[in-house]
């Protein structure tokens, strides 16, 4: 057992766990943050996607020992019902989920994509999202929702821009 401290959704957290234990199961079974889902355990399906220092990673293949000192964001930290992330707002507007099980991972991958590429093309979306499986077949809605999230994000940035300038 090891004591591991990391940042989880903006808050410092310390857990006692075997260092090889995947982050996925630390989140789900020790910290009871069940929004991150198990789908394959082999980094093949993307259901367990979280951000580590802003990068999308498969938490099922990320040992908790690696996470020490890093910053983890899960779907619970992406946004809240009162303050949804642009990706979540777009997902809501377009009613993307069907069964919904893969959608935490889908949104985390989409949010990471938009953070580094604010105006992705269809090809960019395909490349960034092809590691996230949806068996309900929501891909067409996901693609549309990412384009919509990009618009929402751009509008939010435009709204912030004068304030930024004002500060200068």
């Amino acid at each position, binding site marked *: 057992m090891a004591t591991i401290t990391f940042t989880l959704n903006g808050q410092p957290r310390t857990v006692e766990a075997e260092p090889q234990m995947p982050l996925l199961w630390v989140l789900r079974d*020790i910290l009871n943050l069940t929004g991150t889902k198990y789908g*394959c355990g082999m980094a093949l399906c993307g259901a367990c996607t979280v951000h580590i220092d802003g990068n999308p990673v498969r938490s099922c293949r990320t040992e908790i020992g690696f996470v020490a000192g890093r910053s983890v964001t899960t779907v619970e930290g992406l946004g809240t019902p009162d303050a949804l992330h642009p990706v979540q707002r777009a997902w*809501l507007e377009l009613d993307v989920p069907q069964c919904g099980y893969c959608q935490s991972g889908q949104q985390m991958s989409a949010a990471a994509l938009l953070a580094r590429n604010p105006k992705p093309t269809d090809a960019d979306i395909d490349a960034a*999202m092809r590691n996230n*499986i949806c*068996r309900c077949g929501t891909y067409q809605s*996901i693609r549309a929702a990412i384009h919509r999230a990009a618009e929402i994000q751009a509008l939010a940035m435009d709204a912030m821009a004068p304030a930024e300038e004002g500060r200068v």
Partner: protein
Amino acid sequence: MSAAQLKRREFLALSAAGTGALVLGHHVPATAQDGSETLEFNPFVRIAPDDTVTLILHKPENGQGAVTTLCMLLAEELDCDWQRLQWEFAPVARVYGFPLQGTFGSLGVRTSWQPLREAGAKARVMLQSAAAQRWGVDIAQTRTENGRVHRVGSTDSFSYGELALEAAQLPVPETVALKSPDQYRLIGKPTPRRDTLAKITGTARYGIDVRMPDIAFAVLERCPVFGGRVASFDDSRTRAFPGVIDVVQVGRGIAVLATNTWAAMEGRKLLDIQWDLGPNASLSSERIREMQRELLQHSGAVARSEGDVEAAFANAAQKVAVTYEVPYLAHTTMEPPNTAVRLDEQGCEVWSGTQIPGICHSSAVAAAGLEAEQVKVNTLFIGGGFGSRGGGNVYTEAVEIAMVTGRPVNLLYTREDDIQQDRYRPCSMVNLEAALDAEGWPVALRGRVSCQYFQALQNGLDREAVAGLADNDYAIGAQHFEYVPLELDVPTNFWRSVGASQNVYFMESFLDELAAAGGKDPVELRLHLLRDAPRLRRVLEIAAERAGWNTPAVPGRHRGVACVSCFGSHNAQVVEVSVDQGRVRVHKVTCVVDCGQAVNPLTVRQQMEGGIVYGLTAALRGEISLADGRVQQSNFHDYDALRIDEMPEIDVFIVPSEDPNPGGIGETSTPAIAPAVVNAVFAATGVRVRRLPLEKHLPTLLAESQQQDSHAINSGGTIHA
């Protein structure tokens, strides 16, 4: 809920349903989230003094949109405030459909259509009666809107909550008039889903998410060969793994319980189990195909026989005889199977994302050896069903493990367990023959199916094993179909669209072959033969027009078509594909559906898209194969799903229907996609793929075809056009 309230629930349910309303389980459902009193109008509706209206949802939500669609049915007639309408999953009870309470067969909306609208209308009449009594007027002097009863010709009104206490005491009306379609406010309008917010914020609760004090996370090692058993085992290394709590033997194998799922999985790897593999240790896919070929030599149970088939073949100008086949398929729902169980002195409580809570309940009762009243089933969101979460072993396994350990457990199938211990869509092999007349029209069809059965045989026949083939709508004068059951220990199950998932491929691809043989256009042939099936004919016409069937496709792309009536709806699909070095790319699917009254066009569209993706995945690469009695696939690397970069554009068009009642939508679009793609591949390459999956068999067929072509060139023959 107080005893008096429970009695009232039973009484009201009894009067509403007339079939008895036993609510099964020692834990009665919570009345209201804040503990305030709510009034039950019937088994489906509660109204609280704070104006909250609650639908008791008797169909599980596996993504098909049951939550939203059933709320719409109730609200349409109740005239309640849509924003204040809440819902909760129903307990298991006869009034909700027990023993088969659940969602299956694309029946959710069809079987809720009448009862839920009536439940809403009856509650509304009771509220109107209560208001009429207060005002001392006839009920005709009242009207309802958005959760209030208004007095006609005045500004007086009461909210439903204000009237609930009085209204709930009134007699339940025997009959009520329901709205006509021109009065609908909700039905037929694309309506946002009520489960989206929970599903995008990570708060939707699935079976895998069930947590409780002292819960143990469990995985179960089962024999890799179907029907095998544990001979002996050594768990000493497992028990030494940090986090492992217990190792127990149950009917199907050895369970490892731990403080977290990872420790249970890792601990299981350390088990040393000697298996008694049983009689299936040499079973293989090739052996099964040999058995099927042998069975097809024998006659079977007659599924359909009409016209003089023998004479038609004797007089045929042309005959076509081919063999088609499909492999076993797993379901691979994104949420693997799981079930949580807690036993205490009162009984057994089960939590599961189950398609059929009724079967979950019956399985738990049998496994626990308890009375029905001692078992309570809690229905949770389902992370994908597709037919897999009806019956199954997971309920029994979880109860057995909880009984041995005495702890609450949540049993999870790993993805490997899910793929290797699923109950599969059966493989099937069919011989198909057709007779064509001198003009090239089919005049007789003969088929024989060799397949395991999905369900118990009746007079030697499983209707599902021939569904989509023997019940085709084509006016081909003489038709004869037989079914020869294949007896194996490979567990089988329903799989999205069940028998139609394979038979529509056989039927619609074979029909394409007949079009080619008879020199007919595939759409023209179908329209000609669908003269007695006007609704299917119409969707085919519309699909052909929308897809530009009679105009050239983009260079390099080729079209294919297929259509079918199933689950009470009618669907036609036209696809555009390109084939590059044996690799099939589906660019576009035009999907036209007549599903009667579309209750929520938004979820109809979603289900059409989803059904196509599910069927396309299987058509392209879905195959479960057996060797040495073992399933050879194990995870998404060798049993992959369609991914976003392969996603075709799907154009769904919902035909305004003359049928005022809804048809099924959950499975309607799955059957036609495989034949439409295979037919398009034929248009692209001249190669007919009679065995799925495409990605496995097409390259071989293309290579053979090229060899034949080069042979033809070398020997001076004509090149196949």
